[in-house]
Structures are given as structure tokens and as C-alpha cells.
């Protein structure tokens, strides 16, 4: 069977700087992959390149997604094909309600797939259902997209968008960073609720913490723009014990467990992995 996502020898630049230096990765339908790595290893760049961010230039390599040459597609075409990126820093769109934004996005994708657009009433029913995934009431839909949202609310909103758009491949770029334990639980619940045999998820994360809630099938460590080690879920625990220094050999004893100070108080105790 053909892999859902196949990345081969991917190289990408931001300006003149080469960030990705030969990433290869295969993700099959039904799987959850975690991509871990220290700051500056290229994790977020990989997520942005997959989504087609114009700030990055691919210099070598191929990416095949559900049989398409992904690198040849516009960002919106990638979305139409079923790729979703949960942004590390979701943008604000003042004056545009969440409901309107989501309906526009949902219908743009349906239209691209040759389906009829959903009318506002039917869409409202769909929304109501998906709001449960993120434990939100309907009032959130009348607020402008991310405007005045807390960091946690923004991340939750990304998960809501994912729940509505039902992507075949969801790439979550540090969705766990800056979340308190309740928000983390909700985000994890959202991701787990969307697990299906025909879909896959790529979690980009710095910390092992999220993986206590979303158990990955595969874990990859990215360092210096390359995947330096891959393994099963136990690799995350090994990293937790030994730090990134174990694999990067840079001498930066960057912790895999210690969360940022801003949420240290709410982040512990971290429950044990199941």
C-alpha cells in the first residue's frame, strides 16, 4: 500500500540559510508520528514547508501526499487535498467571526472537491457537533477569529478548525506549547477523537508531555535539519531521561521534560504514560 505521506531527502532554505538538510519520513494512514527535537532543529520549518509557506524555498527532495506531488501545489490546493496545519502561532483576523471563517473555509474545500456548499443552517449543526470536541459553547462562534483569545484558546481554536475540516493528514506544530494542563487535555482529546484508520497525524513538539495524552506510533528526533533517530513510543521516554544532548551531541543540555517556566506550576504532576 502507498504511504499517505512520503518525504524523501527534503532540503529547504529560509533566505540563504539551509534549515532542512535531507529529511526523509514515511507516514502511513492510521498512524500518529511525533517529531521531537531541540529549538532550532527545523521542526517548525518542516511543518511550514509541508503546508507551503512562501517564506521557505525547497531546494531538493520530494514530498508525495496521497499520490500528489505536494511541493507542486498551492497552499490552498494542499488543504483541498486534505492537509491541515495547526499553527504554532495562530493569526488573528479582526472583524471576521469564527463561524463565518470556518464556513468559508469548509465550503472552499467542498467546492474544490466538486461538492455542494453547505448552507448556513446545516453548517451550524455540524459546528455544534464539533464544538463538543473542544468543550466550547456556541458563543465562541460569534467572536472574531483569535482576536483577544488567550494562547490556550487560540490552540483550542486550531483543534476546532481541524475537527470541522476533518483533514486526512493533520500536522500540529507545537500545539502543546504554552498550554495549561486542562487545555492540553482538551487538545489531546480533540486529536484522539479524530484518529481513524484512513487518517494520520504528525505532532511536532519539543516536550514529551503531550505524548502522555496522545500515544504515538513512531517518534523521530530532528537535529540540525535531519532525522537523527527514529523509534517507537519508548524513544520519547528515553529522551525524557537522557535529554537531547544524548542525540545532538552539542553539549546543550536541553531538557525534554522541563516545561517553560510560564506554565510550570500547572504542568505538574505529569501523569505517567499509559
Amino acid at each position, binding site marked *: 500500500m502507498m504511504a499517505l505521506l512520503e518525504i524523501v531527502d527534503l532540503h529547504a532554505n529560509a533566505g540563504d540559510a539551509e534549515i532542512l538538510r535531507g529529511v526523509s519520513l514515511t507516514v502511513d494512514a492510521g498512524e500518529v508520528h511525533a517529531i521531537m527535537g531541540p529549538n532550532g532543529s527545523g521542526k517548525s520549518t518542516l511543518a511550514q514547508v509541508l*503546508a*507551503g*509557506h*512562501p*517564506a521557505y*524555498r525547497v531546494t531538493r527532495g520530494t514530498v508525495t501526499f496521497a499520490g500528489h506531488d505536494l511541493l507542486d501545489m*498551492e*497552499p*490552498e490546493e*494542499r*488543504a*483541498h487535498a486534505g492537509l*491541515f*496545519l495547526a*499553527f504554532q502561532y*495562530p*493569526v488573528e*483576523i*479582526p*472583524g*471576521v467571526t469564527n463561524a*463565518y*471563517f470556518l464556513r*468559508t*473555509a*469548509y465550503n*472552499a*474545500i467542498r467546492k*474544490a472537491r466538486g461538492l455542494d456548499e453547505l448552507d448556513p443552517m446545516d453548517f451550524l449543526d455540524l459546528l455544534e457537533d464539533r464544538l463538543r470536541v473542544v468543550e466550547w459553547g456556541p458563543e465562541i462562534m460569534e467572536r*472574531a*477569529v483569535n482576536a483577544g483569545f488567550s494562547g490556550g484558546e487560540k490552540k483550542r481554536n486550531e483543534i476546532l*478548525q481541524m475537527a470541522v*475540516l476533518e483533514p486526512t493528514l493533520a500536522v500540529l506544530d507545537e500545539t502543546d506549547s504554552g498550554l495549561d494542563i486542562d487545555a492540553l487535555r482538551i487538545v489531546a482529546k480533540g486529536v484522539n477523537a479524530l484518529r481513524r484508520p484512513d487518517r494520520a497525524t504528525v505532532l511536532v513538539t519539543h516536550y514529551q508531555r503531550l505524548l502522555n495524552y496522545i500515544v504515538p506510533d513512531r517518534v523521530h528526533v530532528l537535529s540540525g535539519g535531519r532525522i537523527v533517530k527514529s523509534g517507537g513510543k519508548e524513544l520519547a521516554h528515553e529522551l525524557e531521561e537522557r535529554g537531547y544532548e544524548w542525540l545532538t551531541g552539542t553539549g546543550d543540555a536541553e531538557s525534554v521534560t522541563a516545561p517553560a517556566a510560564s506554565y510550570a506550576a500547572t504542568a505538574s504532576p505529569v501523569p505517567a504514560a499509559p
Partner: protein
Amino acid sequence: MSSPVEALVNREYKYGFVTDIEQETAPIGLSEETVRFISARKREPEWLLEWRLKAYRRWLEMTHEPHWANIHHEPIDYQAISYFAAPRTQKPLGSLDDVDPKLLETYAKLGIPLSEQKLLAGVAVDAIFDSVSVGTTFKATLAKSGVFFCSFGEAVQEHPDLVQRYLGSVVPASDNYFAALNAAVFSDGSFVYIPKGVRCPMELSTYFRINAANTGQFERTLIIADEGSYVSYLEGCTAPKRDENQLHAAVVELVALDNATIKYSTVQNWYAGDENGVGGIYNFVTKRGKAMRGAKISWTQVETGSAITWKYPSVILQGDDSVGEFYSVAVVNGWQQADTGTKMIHLGRNTKSTVVSKGISAGRGQNSYRGQVKILPKASGARNYTQCDSMLIGNRCGAHTFPYIDVQNSSSKVEHEASTSKIGEDQIFFCKQRGMNTENAISVIVNGFCKEVFRELPMEFAVEAQKLLGVSLEGSVG
């Protein structure tokens, strides 16, 4: 992949056609003779001719245009334009059945069918073609409620007392250079009178069309809302594509007597010039309303056209408890320049004004907000709230803000908020990642930005305005 924010202006202006119709035009140039010609052509009474001549002499003394606006253009040769143009076949003003079919066709093409059956239900239209009104719909229906809605020329003949009483009462002939010019040579425009206590049963609207070459359009609109009455009025404007700049210098006067409400909406889409900045309308307009005790005047404008826009719809809050509002969306793209805003002059006690201005700049456009809030010594308890937001698309355009605040009463309260944002590649990328194409993404972002203004427009026109905005910004992002 090329940057999505790359201004290459390549817009379609679908109103740029010319109607081939025989015209009667005044000889080129401006003199006392021109003023007399126009007045005679319109069979005006002696007092009005005198009023025009006085304005003309005042204009001669003024010698130059206002120079304080943030706009740049070649000197306008006032002797090179014709000040009057009318379709020759025009019959004495009467039934719409008498209107030249070519004109009806023109308006149908503009999306303004003048046949009453085809019109939007509940909207009456006065159609101004160059210097004259070619027809007003629903006049009979309106007359049943005592509402007068007709061309200015007709009003002079049929309601001379009202015209004489209120003409120039809000914008005096000597007000400014362009107002003086207008007072001397104004041709047609719309006239509205709403009697005491009457709520006008339908939206009134005037559609301005410039057609003839080498002419200017100098219309004058006068709206009088008598005590306790209500009217909602909308104007739209388009012009053919031409290589030379054409002058449009209009005056609008609103009189809201005690407890009356006037809601005045504009969707301005004059030809803006081509991608090299050649041609387009010079839009120099003076709009002002006077609100008496408990009255309310609300201006809403969506300005997307014209090579140059110079206009400041204002409210004189003369009566106690009167209310003034100004909601504006101004878009510049290509080489357009806009210097627009408002004046809120608080004279009465407990007067209230609200200003919401949204400026969008794309291409090489320059957009300036210029607003004055003046609270006079007797205006105790006066309040103003101003919000002024600018959005930039691309990196060759400009946004400028010139607020003037003059407070002479210590019990008043004035607030001013301003913001400038650049439509981010990140915002566009975010929308694209969610499945929208670039145009769709910009339209979503810009309409969100303008929402507070659009919701002030009558429903039918809000939809039109949103579409117009889409067209105006088409191609602003490559």
C-alpha cells in the same frame, strides 16, 4: 514561490463604457456668461441667478484651490472644461416613458433599471446623467406621503420657497473654493423634502453618471427632513474610462430639523484612472449636515473610485441632544489618492458624535484620514468617539492620519483611537491553509476590517459594497 503580497494593479472597471448620445453642451470655459447660460437653460428665477453670480464673483476672488490636503495633481484648467452637458433629446421633465431609450439602456447596463416594475422594491431612484436628471422613479407613490423627491431643477420650479429658504444654509456659497465653484455652475442634483412626522416609506437613491468628455459634473443635493421625520438616502456614481481627468465638484446639504433623522449613504465608484495613473475623476466634494434639537445625521460612505477623493461629510451639531455619525471605508489602489474624513462641530449641549474610519491602501495608493472634532464653549456634556484604522496591502502604498481636536468646554469628553496594520502574508497564508484562494482570503480579511461600517449600510447596498471592495482590490495581490 513568489510573495503573495505583490501589488500589480490589474483591475476591471466594468462601468467604463460611453453612451453615444447627442449632447447639448455649454461652450468650453467659465465666465459670467456661462453662469447665465446655465441659469437660463434651467429657466431659473432671478434670485437664483443672482445667487450664482455672487458665488461666481466670490470664486474669482479665491484664486486657488485649498492646498492643505495630502494630494498631488497637475493644475486644473478651469477654462478647459464645459460646465453643462445634457442629452439633446431630453424632453421637458415628465414621465419616465419619455426618457430616451439609450439612457434607459445605459442605466440598465449600470444595474439601475429605471422601470419601476424592475426596481428593487422599496427604493426610489433619481438618475442624473451629466448635468441633468433624466428621471425619478416612484414620485407619485412618494407624493402620497407628502414626500417630495425630484431633481433639483424641478424643485426650483415646483418648491421654490423650500429651495430659497435652505439653499446655502448649511454650505454657504463662500464656504470653500469648490463649494463656490459649485454654487456658480451647479446643474442638477436631487431634492428631498420629508414632511413633519413622516417616515419616508422607501429608500431614496440618486445615481450619478458622468458621460460626456471634457465636462465636469457639478451637482447639488438638498435634503430637508422636517421635525420628527426619517429618511434613508443613498447615492452611487460611475463614469466612463477616459484618458483625461474629469472634475466632479458636488455639494450636499442636509437639514435635519428637531428630532428628525437623516441617514445618508454613498457608494462612490467613479473611474479611478488606469494602471499608470492616467485619467480618472477628480472628486472634490463638500458635504455637510445641520442637526437641530434631538436630530440625528448619519453619513456612511464607501469610497472605492476616483483618481483623487477630497471630501469630508460633516455634521454641525447645532441643537441640544443632536447626534452626528460618520462611518467610512476608503480604498485606494493603483495611483489613487484619497484625503477624506469628517468634521463634527459641537454647538449644542449633550451632543454626541461617532466617527469610524477604515482606510485601505494598496498598489501605490495614498490614503489620508483628516478629521476635526470641535467642541464649542456652550456644548456642555458633549461627547465624541473617534476610531480610525488603516490597513496596508503591499509595500508601496501609504496611510496617513490627520486628526484635529479642539475642545473648549471642560465637561465634554473626546476619545480618539487609531491603528495601522499591514495585511500580513501570515494572515493570507493562514486563510489559504484553510482552503481559501488568495482573493477569497483578502476579501475575508478586508471585509472583517470594514465590518463596523458595512453594517451601517442598507442591506441591499451592503452586499453591493462588499462586492465592489472585492473588485477594487482585485489584482492588488499577485
